[in-house]
């Protein structure tokens, strides 16, 4: 008897007890659906987190002042530090350095007055932080050198101040009473872990901010974004940055007065947590798949007992052990395979519904079902069917024909 015949016969004998087969399949369906739903949601979560953090490149470092407690007179970061870090002789693995100051000021447009954050930035801040413009242009070197009274607005700030996000280039906005010309509006950048929310801030030439600063020294920089030559050089670049600043700030040996933050490290850590979470949830869901498998075994044992005479007859007609084994294994495998296929569909639906609810509550969560998850679920459920089907099938195969034929 070949496999195709065995499968056809299995399907036929499973349709005899439709309700029983359906309930057995349901056990597998729930198990597989749970696994698929958990994995797809976990993956979706991971993807959405990664996407939110993707504004930060894998070659970016963020440096900010964070003196160790033992340092008595910590020195703030300054434009001098920025220039030193830009020097390829001192920090060979650094490609570019952008400076950023943070402050807040009163913004007014027409009769509207708001307190908003502003960032004083260098011209390369845009490219290093991967900021895109919805309209107008970014700050240029000439704006920095000329301390021009120009501003690039983040989209949310533009919305709250002007009530719109387009057609703003050329408008005048007053910051602390001084007129600034709007030269551009940013595209939304989404959340990022670079400590700054450019969506809700105004970007000004750093030189202008420094000129009007009351801080000491005047050219204090709050954040330095460093672009590393390549992803493989992040470690070296981090060390070079630390070394340059240690020398310039005369930091005592063994201490740091700056923190060099590697966003990629955090991203990796988050990803690891997400993977662990997905595996954990999938593992819990797999328990229900196991229960489904036990259901198959149970029903197959009942079936073997019920059909003892049939088995005896088949043996009398020349069926060998292997034939009977194949027949019952095919039934178990068919049950679990059907359960697997339906479970994948159901699991996917559950994922979609969850994603829909997540979207309704403001989180983007697109469940992701890879071909691998589908393959694994199919293989796993078939394996469960074969594993739990083997014992009953073997029991059937080992029946002695004389006794099986006598069975009432």
């Amino acid at each position, binding site marked *: 008897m070949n496999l195709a*015949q065995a499968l056809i016969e299995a399907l036929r004998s499973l349709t005899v007890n439709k309700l029983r087969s359906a309930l057995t399949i349901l056990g597998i369906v729930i198990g597989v659906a749970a696994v698929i739903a958990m994995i797809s949601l976990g993956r979706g979560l991971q993807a959405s987190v990664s996407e939110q953090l993707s504004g930060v490149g894998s070659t970016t470092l963020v440096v900010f002042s964070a003196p160790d407690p033992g340092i008595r007179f910590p020195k703030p970061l300054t434009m001098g530090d920025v220039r030193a870090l830009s020097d390829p002789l001192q920090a060979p693995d650094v490609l570019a350095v952008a400076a950023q100051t943070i402050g807040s000021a009163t913004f007014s447009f027409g009769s509207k007055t708001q307190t908003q954050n502003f960032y004083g930035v260098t011209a390369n801040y845009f490219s290093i932080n991967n900021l895109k413009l919805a309209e107008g242009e970014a700050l240029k070197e000439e704006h920095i050198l000329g301390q021009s009274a120009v501003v690039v607005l983040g989209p949310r700030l533009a919305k709250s101040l002007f009530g719109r996000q387009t057609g703003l280039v050329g408008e005048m906005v007053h910051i602390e009473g001084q007129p600034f010309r709007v030269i551009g509006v940013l595209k939304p950048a989404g959340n990022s872990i670079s400590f700054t929310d450019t969506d809700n801030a105004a970007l000004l030439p750093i030189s202008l901010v420094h000129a009007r600063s009351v801080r000491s020294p005047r050219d204090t920089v709050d954040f330095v974004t460093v672009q590393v030559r390549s992803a493989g050089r992040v470690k070296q670049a981090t060390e070079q940055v630390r070394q340059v600043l240690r020398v310039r700030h005369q930091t005592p040996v063994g201490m740091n007065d700056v923190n060099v933050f590697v966003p990629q490290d955090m991203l990796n850590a988050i990803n690891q947590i997400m993977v662990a979470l997905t595996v954990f949830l999938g593992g819990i869901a797999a328990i229900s798949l196991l229960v489904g498998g036990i259901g198959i075994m149970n029903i197959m044992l009942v079936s073997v007992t019920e059909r003892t005479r049939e088995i005896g007859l*088949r043996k009398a007609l020349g069926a060998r052990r*292997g034939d009977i084994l194949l027949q019952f294994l095919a039934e178990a495998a068919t049950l679990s395979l059907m359960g697997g296929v339906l479970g994948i569909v159901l699991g996917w639906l559950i994922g979609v519904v969850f994603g829909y609810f997540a979207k309704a509550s403001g989180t983007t969560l697109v469940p992701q079902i890879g071909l691998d998850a589908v393959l694994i679920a199919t293989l796993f459920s078939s394996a469960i069917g074969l594993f739990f089907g083997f014992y009953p099938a073997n029991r059937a195969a080992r029946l002695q024909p004389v006794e099986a034929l006598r069975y009432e």
Partner: protein
Amino acid sequence: MQASTTNDWVVAGENLTKIYPMGKWQVHALNGVSLRIAAGEVVAIMGPSGSGKSTLMNILGCLDRPSSGSYFLDGELVSSLRDDALARIRGRKVGFVFQSFNLLPRISALENVELPMRYVGNGGRARRQRAQAALEAVGLGDRLHHKPTELSGGQQQRVAIARALVNDPAIILADEPTGALDTRSGREILDLLLQLNRERGTTIILVTHDPTVAGRAQRIITMCDGKVEGAVA
């Protein structure tokens, strides 16, 4: 003479015994049975219940092995074969007809008849044609696609006979073939078996306790207490 005898007989059992352990006791279901049946014979095995005729039938049908003794079926020593080899012999050389028909209820008459060919490995289109021919031979050419539940008892037993025939076995073992039938259908079934014997020369072994059934056989072997009564021909 001894060597050639085993080849000339379809069934040749020498000193067959079967011992069942029953707790502390051993039950000797067969106690040294020797018998020979020639090709084309119709033989009835009779005896009261407990006489060992079922045990003998199981051994002759290769459903079971004797505890000792040797059994040649169609010239082949089968008494010491393993389970799967025995299954193969059953499929090729033995056709069973049971008292309760033992048809699979959910498949058609045709598929029931095809079943033994499937296990023996007769494939494809030929299988269907042979099954059809077998059903025609038992007079059910117009009932191919009926399920057993849609057939009368006599018709079901005819399907069973067709199934027994289909692999061209060396022997057909009929265990109380008329036991579940009314007198008329029972007679018809016996007529059919004897007709097949005449036309095809199939060796038929009837196991029965009904003297009218046994009376139709050419020879009667009577069992009592695990032994054959009277002479072995």
